């Protein structure tokens, strides 16, 4: 066998063969970029972003998240129905209902121009 037959001439190597590793890196970056875009779109559209208090700007309130709701008891979905079990449920439900309704969530009007100090001056002075 002749050694010269095994050597490929330089002019015959294609651009793709020459930059194979660089192309691999570029394609990998492109795929990663597209996947990140898709996951970010899902993250924002699903509402997960609104529940994610690890985002910047929520540091002050992060510690106030209730992570332990052990006082909220599960009512058993199995078992018989009698006066005692109904009373047990009613007591449990009324207790939680009272707690749930105790806070007027998203009430008030903190976004009114007056609350933000950007209300109409003429209206305020005429009052």
């Amino acid at each position, binding site marked *: 066998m002749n050694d010269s037959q095994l050597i490929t001439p330089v002019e015959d190597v294609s651009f793709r063969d020459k930059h194979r590793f660089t192309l691999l890196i570029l394609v990998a970056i492109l795929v990663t970029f597209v996947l990140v875009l898709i996951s970010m779109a899902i993250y924002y559209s699903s*509402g997960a*972003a*609104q*529940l994610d*208090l690890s985002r910047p*700007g*929520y540091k*002050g*309130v992060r510690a*106030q*998240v*209730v992570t332990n*709701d052990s006082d*909220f*008891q*599960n*009512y*058993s*979905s*199995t*078992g*018989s*129905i009698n*006066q005692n*079990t*109904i009373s047990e*449920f*009613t007591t*449990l*439900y*009324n207790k*939680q*209902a009272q*707690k*749930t*309704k105790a*806070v*007027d*969530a*998203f*009430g008030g*009007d*903190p*976004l*009114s*121009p007056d*609350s*933000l*100090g*950007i*209300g*109409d*001056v*003429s209206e305020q002075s005429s009052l």
Partner: protein
Amino acid sequence: MTDQQIDKIRTNCVSAKNTLNQLHASDALLRVNRGQIYESMSTKLMNRFNSRVANNSFNNNNLTIVTASYESTLDTFRSDYIAYEERLSSTLAIDCSKQPVAFYDAISSARTERNKVHTDILKLNSYIDQYQLAVAQFEKDFKTSSSGVKK
């Protein structure tokens, strides 16, 4: 919108933005904590009681109707909160010293979205009361049927 008000927005731009930032954070906390409680009401109590009633071959139609309405309102609350948060975030992105009118309009829009979230909360509270009444009615019917069987 008067020129005076535009000036006032420019003057109080920083303090208004600080207030909005605080509200943004506190409302997010409220969404997480209250959302969890409202969800537990249906998953830990309503659905479980409905299943128990159905498993014992009692009529639970009234209970399931209220639960379905409650869960549908809970879904509306979730989507309305997303809309509100997005609106508030876009408001915070506006430079109020350069675009006071756009800032004012964005706040009005966010305010409307927040009111929708509050309405959802009021509806959820109303369904909690309605479920309480449905349980009371069920209890009454149960007592009647039990006493009928005993006779």
